[in-house]
């Protein structure tokens, strides 16, 4: 994660990355090297944190790989923020380690150039302008002050640079947090609930922005308590509940977990019989609204079975909301 080119400052028109322009996030940040990977691996190993008798994080182990967006998921109070604070040296682990590029945060010589973090959107003095907030952090981190203006442009806040943060909406504060995280052009981004408070347009913008940052080889970890908020953004998921690891895997491992189809037909009984005959492995259950939920079989098989039996289908589609169901059952199962 060599940081090489503060001089390469060719940054694109920020409008390209502003809300609505998510489709074409061009060369937003100076390219540093062609080697691809500039992010470091994030390692959490046997991490536990007790606050008095409360166990916030319990023997947690996972890794976050460079060049991928990893969703750090779990219900509120499951230990996500505490884990991030351990990684950032703000909280002392009770046991275990949390390292970035095999180094503890305290031991990184120029942490702001290696790791960018956005913790909850409350870390602002309401009377300070957005620009001065970033200038303070740039000075403290040994980063050129000009980066304050550059990152404000990146997140689409250039017009509000000289306004006091006290008057900012939650979405604007989230963008300012993101700008602060990007000050040092870091290879690792740890973002705590970055989609909180963003409107749908803002979420779409954030999605494109994060995908672009990851495509540069950065390591990106974003926490959320709502899977649907990040499911179109993340490659991998780390799911925790009550401070313990539930799953750490590629997102596809969860989504491909058994195919679930929603089928609607006026001939319900006939279809159930046809499916039992033609695709006996299918599990069929009746839904409250009269449709059928068909599992463990693909949609062509269902369609062919219906055609062969001359059954009229009104609807045949993947049961989409189930990812959240999977998430809820996974996190609920840990209780």
């Amino acid at each position, binding site marked *: 994660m060599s940081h090489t080119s503060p001089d390469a400052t060719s940054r694109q028109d920020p409008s390209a990355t502003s809300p609505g322009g998510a489709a074409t996030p061009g060369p937003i940040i100076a390219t540093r090297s062609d080697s691809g990977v500039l992010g470091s691996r994030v390692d959490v190993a046997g991490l536990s944190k007790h606050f008095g008798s409360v166990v916030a994080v319990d023997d947690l182990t996972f890794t976050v790989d460079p060049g991928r967006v990893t969703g750090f998921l779990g219900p509120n109070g499951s230990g996500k923020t505490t884990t991030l604070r351990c990684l950032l040296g703000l909280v002392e682990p009770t046991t275990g380690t949390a390292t970035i590029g095999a180094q503890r945060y305290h031991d990184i010589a120029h*942490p702001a150039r290696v790791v960018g973090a956005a913790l909850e959107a409350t870390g602002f003095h309401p009377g300070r302008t957005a620009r001065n907030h970033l200038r303070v952090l740039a000075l403290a981190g040994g980063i050129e002050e000009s980066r304050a203006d550059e990152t404000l442009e990146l997140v689409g806040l250039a017009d509000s640079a000289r306004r006091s943060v006290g008057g900012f909406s939650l979405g604007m504060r989230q963008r300012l947090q993101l700008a602060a995280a990007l000050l040092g052009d870091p290879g690792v981004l740890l973002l705590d609930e970055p989609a909180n408070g963003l409107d749908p347009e803002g979420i779409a913008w954030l999605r494109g922005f994060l995908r672009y940052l990851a495509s540069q080889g950065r390591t990106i970890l974003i926490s959320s308590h709502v899977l649907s908020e990040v499911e179109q953004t993340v490659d991998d998921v780390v799911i925790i509940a009550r401070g313990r690891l539930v799953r750490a895997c590629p997102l596809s491992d969860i989504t491909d977990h058994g195919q679930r189809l929603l089928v609607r037909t006026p001939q319900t009984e006939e279809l159930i019989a046809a499916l039992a005959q033609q695709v006996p492995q299918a599990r069929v259950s009746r839904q409250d609204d009269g449709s059928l939920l068909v599992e463990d079989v693909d949609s062509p098989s269902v369609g062919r079975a219906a055609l062969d039996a001359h059954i009229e289908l009104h609807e045949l589609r993947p049961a989409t909301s189930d990812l959240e169901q999977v998430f809820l059952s996974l996190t609920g199962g840990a209780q």
Partner: protein
Amino acid sequence: MSSTRATSAAGATVIARRRSLLSAEILKVTSTKMWLGMLIGVALYIGIGVVATIFAPEQPGMPMPRLSTTEGLRNLFSTAGSGYVFAIVIGALGMTQELRHRTLSSMLLSEPRRNRVMVAKMGAYAGVGAFYGLVGVVFGYALALAFLPLKDHGDIPIDALWQIAGGSILGCALFAILGVAVGTLVRNQIGAILGILVWVLLIEALLVAFLPAVGKWLPGGALSGVLQSTGFNGASYLPVWGGALVLVGYTAVFGVIAAATTQRRDVS
């Protein structure tokens, strides 16, 4: 040879980092309006103090040195140092508002070496305190010199004026550092400010005035020594250098304790 060069280069980097950290802390102060409000407070407080000292009628039973004496004139001019109350309060505010607004965590992300952050903050607020001290001296002296001709007074002790000016600036700088330390230890903003005000304006003030044998060893009493004030019934305090040493000692002890407790504390 080359390792020496490398070491000195590393040393230069550390110095540059510390300097920019100090700049960050100074920018924090100047980028909000708190310092200005407190400065107005300093001027009002000292203005009232100077005018009251010149024009207040004699209090029977509480004999203070009169303006016809050198002691009385020293007391008048040392009113210029009373901005130290605001210096300690702004120091405490500077620290506690970082905790209140949770800006400390983003600061520690930029520089996780907490000792450096504490030293920079104390340095920045020492500067703010010294500035308040300087403004207090200029403003207080100007008022005193403007109003003194209206009353009978003795010869103005020019040497003492320089000494009191230096003592005021140093004292305000040290009290601002003390404020940062108290804010770090108390953490709660309202608790820290209330505690400081009750201590400085009530408990310590009473001890310094009515029990100078004890009071002169307290921070406020030590400052009275630095400013060479004279109390009721001609009570005297520590000599200038004694007072300065005691004050530096308090600042050092509280500063070190504050920095030490910050080292491993969890930051939310």
